[in-house]
């Protein structure tokens, strides 16, 4: 897997440099909502680089997107926030070729800037009286939380198991909860409204973002070119600026 991005990255550079006239038309990219900022930037960069192309972006939760694609939505590219949802699509034989992983994300403890419960480690979250919110096990960040809990042997007693990272973040930024478990990238986006506390155990649960061309795509070439941009150096830069790790 580590070789693939490099290879495609190279071809993208070639495509950008050459005057290949093949890249025209429009593709629709279905991307996880957490990719909004990065993909918006990548898409506009791509359009600038390849005049005559248009990248339409459709953001929603990864599972929503999968449902939409399996129900025949006109998607060309699917970028998922976890491998589980991508697997649903490959199982349904709706991808064109194997998905490529283009980013990773790890958990971080988020606390309000004042850190009212004085959290400094993962173990602190299990202290009685600390109001912790986490993601529900059904969603990727919740699965990751579970993994970390198992790995550390710490059992959390959350006051709420949210269905998305955004909801966890919302509880922490509003000061409702004392701490929450979210992704590094979320802490970064939230800026001053939140303080991130990294913890070493987060390595135990790395979340991977895969991307793939949808089998029913009418413009696989353009789709492939966009995927190349995402997985290529330009994509890496934009993604890592946003806090994503590289797979």
């Amino acid at each position, binding site marked *: 897997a580590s070789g693939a991005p490099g290879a495609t990255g190279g071809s993208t550079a070639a495509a950008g440099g050459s005057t290949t006239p093949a890249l025209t038309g429009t593709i629709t990219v279905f991307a996880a909502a957490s990719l909004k900022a990065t993909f918006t930037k990548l898409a506009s960069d791509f359009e600038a680089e390849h005049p005559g192309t248009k990248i339409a972006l459709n953001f929603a*939760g990864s*599972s929503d997107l*999968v*449902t939409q694609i399996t129900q025949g939505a006109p998607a060309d590219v699917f970028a998922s926030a976890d491998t589980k949802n991508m697997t649903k699509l490959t199982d349904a034989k709706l991808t064109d070729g194997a998905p490529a992983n283009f980013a990773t994300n790890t958990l971080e403890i988020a606390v309000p800037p004042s850190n009212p419960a004085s959290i400094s480690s993962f173990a602190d979250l299990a202290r009685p009286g600390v*109001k912790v*919110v986490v993601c*529900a096990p*059904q*969603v990727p960040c919740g699965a990751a939380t579970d993994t970390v809990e198992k790995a550390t042997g710490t059992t959390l007693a*959350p*006051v*709420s*198991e*949210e*269905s998305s990272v955004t*909801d966890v973040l*919302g*509880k922490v930024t*509003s*000061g*409702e909860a004392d701490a929450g478990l979210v992704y590094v990238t979320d802490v970064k986006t939230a800026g001053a409204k939140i303080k991130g506390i990294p913890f070493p155990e987060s390595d135990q649960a790395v979340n991977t973002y895969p991307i793939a061309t949808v089998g029913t795509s009418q413009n696989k070439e353009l789709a492939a070119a966009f995927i190349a941009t995402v997985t290529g150096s330009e994509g890496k830069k934009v993604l890592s600026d946003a806090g994503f790790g590289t797979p």
Partner: protein
Amino acid sequence: MNRRSGTGYTGIPPWIYAIAAAGAVFVLLPLVAMVAKVNWPQFIPLITSESSLTALGLSLRTSATSTAACVVLGVPLALVLARSPFPGQRLLRAFVLLPLVLPPVVGGIALLYTFGRQGLLGRSLEMAGIQIAFSTTAVVLAQTFVALPFLVVSLEGALRTAGNKYEAVAATLGARPSTVLRRVTIPLVLPGLASGAVLSFARSLGEFGATLTFAGSLQGVTRTLPLEIYLQRETDADAAVALSLLLVAVAVAVVGLSYRRPRVDAAPEGAFR
């Protein structure tokens, strides 16, 4: 007229039935599609699973409570809006309707800003020892917030349509305003009030966004059936759809039962005796 023995007059042009049928089909088809998708062998264990039943119980309890809260708060609001003209009435009406347009998630955020620990009232409430966030109370608050406009609007329409003739008669017979309200106004607009309450209940039962944002999602405490469905969807959309049939069934039962056959004589004094 002809309420009992005849069906002499129903003034509905035939083409109205055609459109009504189209409308009904439009609403029913998606339900049929849902039912068609259900994987029945998987369905029974799913809806009888502990988490589903807990969520259903919580949903019914909180929806009933918030419907009651809507009636308590909404009937006075509708009365004031329909009966006593005052400056700023239009503005008040517009504001009361706002929870309708706010995307529920934003509504939830607004509630957090108000009743949350750091919110407008939160601090005072916390001093008073009241903790709302992450509790079942929060669920009820969220549901009441989104469902209240339904009751107010449909009741106000009914109150306006009914007019206040009978209330005035009651007053000339010596009835105090409270008596008039209890014995004349409310009984007369009962169909409107029932519609409103059913709408509120249904909206509360289906409420999801505001609850998620404001109250969180903890099994048995704040995870209502819609939240359970939403989570279920993360892993299996078809299962989520199946689970929502449970919600649908509950709603059909409640709505079906709450609209009794209109009383034979509920209509105002017959004109054609």
